[in-house]
């Protein structure tokens, strides 16, 4: 019987059937961070349970740490130091690998899981963090879980689940100049709503997806959860293999050769059937920016704020009206030229090398507009150091950006830091939720190039009108 990419990975991880619907599913890797990992390990300790396979468990610090240069365990988060110290103590007690603050491999969970080769194609990887779907870019199942499920997977190496339905999203055609993976995913969500994936496992396919480099694929998969998908994944190909080969925890030598043979089967059969299919014509995608408080509240850069009266559904209409009140916007207002107070480049969505290169391409020789606070947080030490070797830090600093240490940072008030109430912020992150970047902060999501263009303009702008040197997309070096 014809099978999908998801079927092929999932089915070989089923340990046993538990009832009519639920399965016990083997999980190959678990990644923890100090916010939720510390709570899960503490709970296991209190219950006297052991971690079944510490070899397959990794941890980092990203949610509580601040990102100021010279940082340590103390952060602005009330009670934050306890999370950092508890994560360190429990990781040591249990014997799991922790990439601690001053480790050269430190960074945001989902970035370093890929960078270090901890996640490779064909694996099932769980983390108590909703953006674990990012790792689907490698052709793995990235499974975001809560703390209880985290305790379960640590204690049993398995999760209990019902196999999700399956969705394929095909991106036809090619992306226009200056259009990025960020625009692809936000456009998709705006078109089919934030609940559009209905909890299904989603495969991204089509020529525009195949043309993406790995950094862009991570961006595309990262926001699968914002589309309400169980996870998002892309079939591994030559681009994936080239990325994985030689990474520290990836299979080496004969193991790699055998893995490569397994991975070559990881694609949906031609006649595989999906429960749901969506298609996007890439020529419809513009550099995209959000206007409201859900990623579904988004339009192309030349678009206008819509009228809640036009929403077909009353709960959606109420949400739109509340969003406009919160964002301080009126129906019909253009997004372009809307003045901003803050600009942030960072997060598991868009803080990789090609993201920083794309922003630097716009910032080079320009200055952040007066009155705009602009911050860049590279996603990992590896990204930061590679960028610094290319002189990208100098470009950001010369333009007037702050250049920070890796961590989740201003994506959500991490490190206890936010923008000020009613400030309008353009951000390369994944969630424009109310209060996400600080109480009453107004967030507009966009690609790193769009954030850079807005930062130098002092207002939301079209990145295509700025000469630039790279994109998070098929043009990236």
């Amino acid at each position, binding site marked *: 019987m014809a099978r999908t990419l998801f079927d092929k990975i999932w089915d070989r991880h089923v340990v046993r059937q538990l009832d009519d619907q639920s399965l016990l599913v083997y999980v190959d890797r678990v990644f923890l961070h100090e916010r939720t990992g510390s709570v899960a390990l503490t709970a296991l300790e209190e219950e006297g349970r052991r971690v079944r396979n510490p070899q397959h468990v990794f941890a980092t610090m990203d949610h509580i740490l601040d990102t100021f240069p010279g940082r340590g365990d103390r952060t602005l988060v009330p009670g934050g130091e306890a999370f950092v110290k508890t994560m360190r103590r429990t990781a040591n007690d249990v014997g799991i690998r922790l990439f601690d603050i001053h480790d050269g491999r430190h960074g945001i969970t989902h970035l370093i899981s890929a960078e270090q080769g901890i996640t490779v194609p064909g694996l099932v990887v769980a983390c108590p963090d909703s953006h674990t779907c990012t790792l689907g870019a490698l052709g793995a199942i990235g499974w975001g879980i809560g703390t209880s499920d985290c305790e379960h997977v640590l204690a049993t*190496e398995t999760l209990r689940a019902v196999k999700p339905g399956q969705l394929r999203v095909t991106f036809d055609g090619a992306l226009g100049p200056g259009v990025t993976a960020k625009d692809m995913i936000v456009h998709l969500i705006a078109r089919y709503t934030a*609940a559009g994936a209905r909890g299904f496992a989603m495969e991204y396919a089509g020529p525009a997806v195949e043309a993406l480099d790995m950094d862009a694929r991570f961006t595309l998969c990262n926001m699968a959860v914002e589309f*309400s998908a169980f996870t998002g994944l892309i079939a591994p190909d030559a681009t994936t293999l080239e990325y994985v080969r030689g990474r520290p925890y990836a299979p080496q030598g004969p193991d790699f050769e055998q893995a490569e043979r397994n991975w070559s089967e990881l694609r949906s059969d031609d006649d595989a059937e999906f429960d749901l299919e969506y298609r996007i014509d890439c020529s419809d995608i513009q550099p995209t920016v959000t206007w409201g408080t859900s990623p579904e509240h988004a339009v192309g850069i030349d678009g206008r704020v819509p009228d809640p009266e036009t929403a077909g559904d009353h709960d959606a209409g109420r949400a739109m009206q509340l969003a406009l009140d919160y964002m301080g916007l009126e129906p019909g207002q253009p997004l372009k030229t809307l003045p901003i107070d803050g600009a942030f480049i960072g997060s598991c969505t868009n803080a990789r090398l090609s993201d920083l290169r794309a922003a630097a391409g716009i910032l080079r020789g320009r200055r952040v507009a007066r009155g705009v606070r602009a911050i860049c947080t590279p996603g990992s030490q590896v990204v930061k150091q590679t960028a610094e070797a290319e002189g990208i830090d100098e470009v950001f600093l010369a333009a007037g950006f702050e250049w920070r240490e890796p961590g989740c940072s201003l994506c959500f008030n991490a490190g206890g830091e936010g923008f000020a109430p009613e400030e309008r912020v353009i951000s390369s992150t994944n969630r424009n939720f109310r*209060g996400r970047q600080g109480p009453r902060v107004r967030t507009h999501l966009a690609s790193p190039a769009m954030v850079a263009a807005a930062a130098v303009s002092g207002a939301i702008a079209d990145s295509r009108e700025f000469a630039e040197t790279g994109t998070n997309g098929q043009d990236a070096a």
Partner: protein
Amino acid sequence: MKPFTQHSGIAAALLVDNIDTDQIIPSREMKRVSKLGLGEGLFAGWRYVYDGAERAGENAEFVLNDPVFRNATILLGGANFGCGSSREHAVWALADFGIRAVIASSFGRIFRNNCARNGLLAVELAAEHVDRIAAQGAEPVDIDLEACRLTLGDGTTIDFDVPPADRDMLIRGLDYIDFALRYADDIDAFVTRDRRSRPWAHLRASES
């Protein structure tokens, strides 16, 4: 875990789509390495008024501050309730506040899973049914999980579906880690087989 079989309570309506877990509990309200005492931070951005970033009293407009709904034990939501961050703190905060069930037209997947693991019932119903419950105001709703049936104040009944594993876990108040560990032999056998067929997927001590 506290078993859930039957419950009767007042339902407070938050009929807006995409209420995310950052709304249910903002990250700045998660102050301790603990699952306890989070009710105070529930809907903190909506429930309180602020002077700058400091709390300066209750927001009288918010439904859970309405004297009629202050003791609500059921919450009604729109589409995609509990989307966003995986933080189980959202469920712990709801439970600590006294909420026993959330009824919405759809849920964020991780939130829904987290509910079942903590004795909180998540019921997915068509939006018109949710609206109908909201329309009866402070009349109590009876929930019978054994029968998977809601009964409204006027005697109207609405049947619902819950995944059998979640229902079982809620009714019996099972510890589901113990449940999985009953299959430890199956897990061992799986790992032994898998090490042979996918040696590349298993890390060895020297590599970590």
